[in-house]
């Protein structure tokens, strides 16, 4: 035990004597560990974002989009091709468990008293909350009765609420959309961001009000369709396409005047590209760590040579090969672990900075810090072993003669 503490004292003393070189040597490990920590944090953050997005989009939901842009066909363009009959027919499909027709108006300016804000307004039915995991924060959500009776009521996203009612409660207050007045009945829980859209800036009213009062006509642009299981999503898309072509009496030569998409799949697809990027960054972090390790090995080899005489002296007064090896190995491990710790701190800093500058969600897993520091320690052990062994095997008589 005495000698073990002594090893540490000797190793630390040797590092202190050459501290600048030690710092430069450890820098490789610092950079390596920092990039590993940062990449892991960004990666975990992105993973969480994907999961959150999928949760927000709803699981197993096919979005039917009735916006039809006419290019190179004789068909006339339309923003809303989905009829109430279409919605009813889709809901009859065997693998479909719920349908939520909805209609949005983007960049709509609404106001409350002197405050106004630009939002995305959604006309919805109660099923919307069900499919898209909408939950109530205060008050209540759009009910079946609101839809049936065409009540002028509104549910606010939290940011929309903050913009319109910065100083007081929103529920019971009046929001104006053009000349139409809505009574606020509730707010929805915080949803965060999806891609570039702030989901908390949305407001919700009963679907009939959007269709009849604000836009005119019975058709909707969108229908959210929940499918029984993930495996049936593609089949559902095919069935819905066949059904809607039939419903819309489209001749064979006509293009679909709607589209279906699996939004979760789109998110996952978008994620795949960034995953490749991350793997590359991870590899770079690994390479930096490797270079750092080689740096440590180089320094320890140089140190072994510089201190040949010292090793000879130590051996002449009773240091056995194991003791010399331990001394050098501890020196390498101290260097790499300190580098690893500094790297972990730098990695946390870098992660914060990335989160701040790029606006990405990041998630620092304590386990990843532990792994990173352990890897650094392993690097020190691995790359310190050979120089330590070399020092330990020095012939004492030759070492003492060394000038």
């Amino acid at each position: 035990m005495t000698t073990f503490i002594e090893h540490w004292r000797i190793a630390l003393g040797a590092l202190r004597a050459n501290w600048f070189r030690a710092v430069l040597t450890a820098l490789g490990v610092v950079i390596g560990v920092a990039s590993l920590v940062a990449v892991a944090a960004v990666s975990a953050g992105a993973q969480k974002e994907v999961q959150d997005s999928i949760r927000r989009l709803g699981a197993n939901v096919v979005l039917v989009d009735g916006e039809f842009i006419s290019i190179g066909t004789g068909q006339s363009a339309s923003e809303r091709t989905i009829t109430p009959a279409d919605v009813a027919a889709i809901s009859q499909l065997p693998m479909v468990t719920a349908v939520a027709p909805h209609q949005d108006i983007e960049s709509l300016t609404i106001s409350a008293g002197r405050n106004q804000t630009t939002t995305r307004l959604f006309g919805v039915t109660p099923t919307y909350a069900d499919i898209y995991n909408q939950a109530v924060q205060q008050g209540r959500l759009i009910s079946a009765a609101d839809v049936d009776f065409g009540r002028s009521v509104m549910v606010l996203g939290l940011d929309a609420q903050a913009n319109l009612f910065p100083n007081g409660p929103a529920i019971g207050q009046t929001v104006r959309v053009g000349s139409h007045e809505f009574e606020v009945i509730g707010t929805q829980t915080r949803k965060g961001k999806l891609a570039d859209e702030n989901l908390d800036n949305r407001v919700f009213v009963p679907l009939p009000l959007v269709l009849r009062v604000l836009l005119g006509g019975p058709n909707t642009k969108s229908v959210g369709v929940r499918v029984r299981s993930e495996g049936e999503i593609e089949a559902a898309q095919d069935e819905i396409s066949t059904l809607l072509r039939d419903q819309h009496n489209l001749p064979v030569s006509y293009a679909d005047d709607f589209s279906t998409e699996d939004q979760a799949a789109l998110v996952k697809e978008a994620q795949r590209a960034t995953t490749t990027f991350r793997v590359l960054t991870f590899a770079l972090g690994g390479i930096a760590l490797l270079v750092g390790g080689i740096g440590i090995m180089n320094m320890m080899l140089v140190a072994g040579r510089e201190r040949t005489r010292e090793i000879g002296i130590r051996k002449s007064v009773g240091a056995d090969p194991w003791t010399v090896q331990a001394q050098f190995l501890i020196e390498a491990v101290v260097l790499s672990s300190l580098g690893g710790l500094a790297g972990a701190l730098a990695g946390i800093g870098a992660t914060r900075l990335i989160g701040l500058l790029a606006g990405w969600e990041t998630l620092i897993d304590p386990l990843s810090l532990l792994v990173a520091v352990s890897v650094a320690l392993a690097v020190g052990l691995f790359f310190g072993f050979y120089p330590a062994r070399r020092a330990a095997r020095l012939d004492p008589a030759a070492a003492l003669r060394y000038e």
Partner: protein
Amino acid sequence: MTADGSAGIIELADVTKLFRQGEISVEALRGVSVVVRKGEFLAITGPSGSGKTTLLAILGLLERPTTGSYRLVGEEMASLNETRRAHVRGKRIGFVFQAYNLLPRSTALENVELPLVYAGVSRGERSKRALDALGEVGLSQRALHRPSRLSGGEQQRVAIARALVIRPSVVLLDEPTGNLDSASAEQVLAILEQAHRGGATIVMVTHSTELAERASRNLRLADGLVGSDEPTARPYALGGAAG
């Protein structure tokens, strides 16, 4: 066994040492037998290349003999592995080199403590014993100085303190005064003589006949062989070989 039947601290029998360097091989020792008994002060002399430094390195377990037997305090050394040899060095052998060989970044006290560190002596006892040893060589006041702030003579006295602190079975010295002016050399010799009077067994390599005369016995090497082995004119009472 010695001629009179008493066991020696050092028993060297027919030791040879062959150095190979590529094609060339040099026979530094060609069959040396010598017994050193407890309390002796042996000077090994001889011209350059006679093998005296090689002999000292073998005695100090820094080199292995090519053939022959070396028993230290009754234990055969030839068959020991490197770890065991290091432990024997640390326990039984005190070295003093011509170039002092102190650790430059450590204080005088830390240098003297070093053998005790490897012997596993606790910290408190270590510094007490090291301070005592420094006191014996008259350097208590310089304990916290680094070698670079000590004179050559002082450095060599620190080295002697380091050699004596483990109370070794034998102290080995290689030209201990070779780098010193005559006044410092005299101080060093006085300390050695004092240690010898205190019962220490000493083996010293020197090319100086004047220095060799201060020992109790003089072994002269020539061309890798023992040329002569005689008590000196002024052997100390403790010297066993005098008779």
